[in-house]
């Protein structure tokens, strides 16, 4: 399934609800001292038993609560030097997300989420305890200058020194870092009709425009057709298809939370980062 296909919320919730039914007993086991407890300080996430089972069966490709942070390295464009995930052990907690700057769908929300965590850490006086890592999988387009400007536009505070743009030097290297190590799927979009989407400020201005006159006189079927056309148009405008993922790891190098699928609202990220800092 493409990440861009719509899934009715009801079905999504039904799946979660059904999954949680069988979990009650397992959760108690976890609270009694599951094997993740010694490496983590946050409470296990919802559905942890199910996630753990899927993870242990290799059905789940991304690291979850209690797993070691993948050990990978790539250049940091802000410091102009290679930075490894392990470089932060015993130093600070880290939050990762995986993006391409031309993205006008989920990626700005992911970066904004990390920016919220950075702002809160500054407000709380703990900016040196949490590092924010944004990893591009589009190094061809995302040059150091492009990334710096992108961050500035997103309101990143570079002065506090805890923001890292990580840029694997080739797309193959990005696959190793983002997809193989972190289990965050991305792929070039074969439907992409490139063109001049260089400027993010303007690249989306044709997004959904021009169809206004088509609305308002159609029946329900016409309306849903319009929706599909808009979806198709959006697909063609996206150079990559990708999974939305944010990973929060502690200063011992273990994953505390992986937010996969839905982009979490910023309060969730802030609350979990605060809890990690407070309990550490």
């Amino acid at each position, binding site marked *: 399934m493409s990440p861009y296909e719509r899934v009715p919320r009801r079905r*999504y919730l039904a*799946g979660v609800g059904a999954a949680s039914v069988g979990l009650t007993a397992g959760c108690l086991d976890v609270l009694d001292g599951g094997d993740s407890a010694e490496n983590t300080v946050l409470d296990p996430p919802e559905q942890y038993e*199910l*996630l753990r089972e899927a993870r242990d069966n290799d059905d789940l490709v991304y690291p979850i609560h209690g797993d070691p942070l993948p050990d990978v390295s790539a250049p940091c464009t802000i410091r102009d030097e290679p930075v490894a995930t392990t470089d932060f052990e015993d130093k600070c907690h880290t939050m990762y997300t995986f993006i391409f700057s031309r993205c006008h769908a989920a990626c700005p*929300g992911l970066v*904004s989420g990390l920016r919220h965590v950075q702002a809160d850490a500054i407000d709380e006086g703990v900016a040196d305890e949490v590092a924010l890592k944004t990893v591009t999988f589009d190094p061809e387009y995302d040059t150091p200058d492009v990334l710096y400007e992108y961050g500035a536009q997103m309101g990143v505070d570079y002065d506090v020194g805890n923001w890292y743009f990580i840029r694997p030097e080739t797309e193959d290297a990005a696959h190793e870092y983002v997809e193989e190590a972190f289990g965050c*799927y991305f792929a070039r979009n074969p439907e992409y009709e490139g063109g001049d989407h260089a400027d993010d400020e303007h690249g989306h201005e044709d997004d959904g*425009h021009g169809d206004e006159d088509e609305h308002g006189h159609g029946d329900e079927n016409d309306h849903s057709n319009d929706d599909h056309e808009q979806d198709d148009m959006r697909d063609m405008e996206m150079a990559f298809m990708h*999974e939305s993922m944010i990973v929060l790891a502690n200063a011992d190098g273990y994953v505390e939370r992986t937010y996969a699928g839905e*982009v979490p609202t910023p309060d969730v990220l802030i609350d979990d980062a605060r809890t990690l800092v407070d309990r550490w």
Partner: protein
Amino acid sequence: MRRRDLLAGAAALGVAAGGAALAIGGVDPWDDGESIESFDLPTIDVAGVEAETIAVPERGTVTFVELFATWCGVCADLMDPMASVYADLGEDVQFVSVTNEPLGQTVTEADVGDWWDAHGGTWPVAHDVDLDLTRTLGASSVPYSFVLDEDNTVTWSDSGYKSESELRAPIEGALATDETGW
């Protein structure tokens, strides 16, 4: 090469793949008729807005609220259709845009005010300082638009760009329901 593994995991859990669609928009999570509380939000100093705080959503009236951010290009695109709807329906509903950006460091209230003026905003704009409204509405992206009836129950919500008619229809629907008492 791991695509199949990823999908297998996601399907087994019913979590990851389904959730991804929500980030793109077009899904209405509000089908349980739940009423939400009002939050007192500070307003940003823009033309035509005098109150220092406003209650959002306002009980006793239909509310249209849009979550936005100044870094968001689609939010800028949405200002024109919103302005048209506000010109027609602004007197009948509480019409408000709310930014949930962290303000005061790299982006200030003045920046929001400048952005607002540059994009022709003429209605109140407020700041969701503690993310209370964002959290309650579950606004996982911007722009995210909501219509709430006079009981503060969400009757429509969607993320992303909307045409004028797409914005107008759910607001008129909520107004019609209020008048008939349905």
